[in-house]
């Protein structure tokens, strides 16, 4: 035991002194949490995003037409997501759109006010004020700006009717969430936290652990160690303990940052959640050992680990839920353990993203861990290089 602890201390000290390990295990999760929460954390509120839109007015709006001005004013500046830039001609506005200096163009053609007045007076939809909105398909910010503008203008007809008709009755709108009990309770940072936590586990188990083992084997370090009273099993245990310790250090730092600077739900401190995290760590550890068993060269280990790391991260839904994947990708999604592990942690926090039973969330990772352990056990001598 003493030998294992001494070796573990030495490995840990060496990793902490090495910038690469220090960065990926301790700093990168915090940077990623910060970046993703900054980008996606306020997408739904629209508060943090500004879309520059160009407006081309081919006439000065009068009468009921003023309502269009009111709508644009209420959704721009401090009130809304748009920053309005006026253009004298549609060509100039489209040019700015194509060059990327604005995300959307609104054209208010001549005759808008008179058409609005006529349509309201005659109570008909035969005469319509046709506004035009130009956007760039494929460009996410342009598409989102167009979506928001469409939502806003969907309400304008109703607003005009409300002003004209005192008996107007509004429908009651109820928004529910399948993921949380109340839609208002959803918090992206709380949703994201288990994803980043699981990513820290992947760094240690898929990237660090198999590379360390393969590199030690290829460089002959193992053989040198075995010439001392250290046994392969002691060496392996010390390595695993080092990986676990690095992961725990990274997780503690992430907890401190998340709880100090972000409105993350306090349920992340619950024993159930911490238990789910340790379950993830324990079931993912054999995965890395399996890679070291199946792949010979250290360079190939790096490539395979990277492929698995990225696949498990993005297709596992660590940062956003995967809902609309093609069939082939769905097979991968349902096969990889991270899909189940992140769902397990999120369920503890009160979020539910799939119809999988709790039993499945435990069973699939356990099956992977068992299979990986068996494969590693058969290749133990080869991986540890003491044949």
């Amino acid at each position, binding site marked *: 035991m003493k030998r294992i602890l001494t070796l573990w201390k030495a490995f840990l000290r060496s990793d902490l002194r090495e910038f*690469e390990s220090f*960065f990926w295990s301790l700093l990168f999760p915090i*940077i*990623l949490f910060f*970046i993703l929460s*900054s*980008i996606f954390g306020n997408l*739904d509120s629209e508060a943090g995003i500004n879309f520059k839109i160009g407006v081309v007015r081919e006439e000065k709006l009068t009468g009921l037409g003023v309502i269009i001005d009111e709508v644009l004013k209420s959704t721009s500046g401090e009130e809304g997501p748009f920053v309005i830039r006026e253009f004298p001609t549609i060509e100039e506005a489209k040019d700015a*759109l*194509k*060059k*990327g200096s604005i*995300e959307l163009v609104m054209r208010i053609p001549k005759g808008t006010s008179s*058409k609005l007045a006529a*349509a309201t007076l005659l109570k008909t939809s035969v005469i319509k*004020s046709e*506004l*035009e*909105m*130009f*956007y*760039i*398909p*494929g*460009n*996410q*910010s342009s*598409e989102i700006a167009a979506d928001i*503008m*469409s*939502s806003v203008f969907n*309400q304008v007809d*109703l607003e005009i009717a409300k002003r004209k*008709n005192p008996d107007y*009755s*509004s429908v*009651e*709108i*109820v928004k*529910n*969430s*399948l*993921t949380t009990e109340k839609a208002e309770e*959803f918090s992206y940072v709380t949703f994201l936290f288990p994803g980043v936590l699981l990513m820290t586990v992947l760094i240690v188990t898929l990237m660090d652990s198999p590379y360390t083992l393969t590199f030690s084997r290829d460089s002959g370090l193992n053989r040198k160690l075995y010439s001392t009273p250290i046994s392969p099993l002691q060496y392996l245990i010390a390595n695993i303990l080092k990986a676990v310790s690095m992961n725990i250090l990274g997780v503690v730092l992430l907890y401190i940052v998340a709880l100090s600077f972000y409105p993350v739900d306090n349920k992340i401190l619950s024993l159930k959640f911490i238990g789910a995290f340790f379950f993830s760590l324990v079931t993912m550890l054999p995965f890395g050992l399996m890679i070291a068993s199946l792949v010979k060269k250290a*360079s*190939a280990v*790096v*490539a395979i680990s990277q*492929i698995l790391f990225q696949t498990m991260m993005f*297709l596992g839904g660590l940062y*956003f*839920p*995967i*809902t*609309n*994947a093609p069939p082939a*990708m769905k097979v991968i999604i349902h096969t990889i353990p991270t899909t189940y592990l992140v769902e397990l942690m999120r369920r503890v926090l009160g*979020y539910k*993203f*799939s119809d999988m039973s709790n039993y499945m969330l435990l069973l699939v990772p356990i099956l992977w861990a068992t299979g990986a352990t068996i494969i590693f056990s058969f290749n133990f001598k080869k991986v540890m290089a003491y044949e």
Partner: protein
Amino acid sequence: MNKIKQTLVIFAAFFKESFRNKLEFFFSLGFPILFLVMFGFLFGGQESASALRVGFFSQDDSIASTMKNLKGFELKTYNSVDGTLKALENNEIELAVYFHDEKIKFTIKEGNPALEGEINTAISAIVSAIEGKLNGVKKIIDLKKIPVSSGSFITTESDYIMSGVIGISILSSGMFAVISIFGRYRKRGILNRLRATPMSPIAFIIGSTLTRFIVSVFSVFIIMLVNKLLFASKIVPEFVPLLIVVICSTMGMMALGLLLVLIFKEPQSAQSAGSVLFIVMTFASGVYFPIAFLPEFMKKLSMFLPVTYTVRLIRGAMGIIELSKNEFFFVNVVFAVLGILLLVTVSKLFLKAH
């Protein structure tokens, strides 16, 4: 051996090494393709994959027919509330709608930033249509949504992702390669040994960097081919401007790597600093997410990151966005000049005979 012959021999050696080094090959080509495939399929590489699916149930037939007339999403009707919710749970739809007794219930699965905008628009359109129907509101404002090509054709999200992936591939191919050549080779004493030979430093620089251009060009065409095969991309790039962009951007990224080599004595530190920059640029250069999504300080930061400009150049050369000739010329010249200046500086420092 004359200088041209020297250059060719060095080039041949580096070229072989580049394609034999599986790890380097993976990071230059395999890694970007992995991202293209994953993000392309997840974020709408194919038109059908990006359409919002809405499940609806109501016992009121007139409301059901109003819903059928709505555009902008795929409507699926169900026979019960439970059936609609089950479909949402099974990911068959992204939004469940139930109308009863002047009340509209919307149920969603939260957490997907990619769908937020589409869901909010659909909710607004549905409320507007149902409330309008109940109050006999006539539609008097029609907002036409007209797609405009920012380049030479109508793009898809996979085209944007692909061009971003190419930017990252060029960054990886240029920056990390020179860190390896001038950092690791110096550390291992290989450059010192080369200095003892009659090799011309210029021949070494041209021979070793020429390979990077070939690797970059090769990667770009393979990534474009994958995008065409998987996502039916309509991109028909102008090959000469694209070639200029790839070469100048590779030089720009090399300049960045060389700067790190000059700042950090240890190649490992330069490599680590490169990794940090790589991550920052992946997120803050408009590669996978538009710069408009970024918080204000990251928007400002993006203006100082070379990949932001590389990605714009690539999108311009591929006809995805319209790029002014001035911007195209200026950015390419800056990248090329910086690359040449730093290559000359580093070769003088590390390769000149004692």
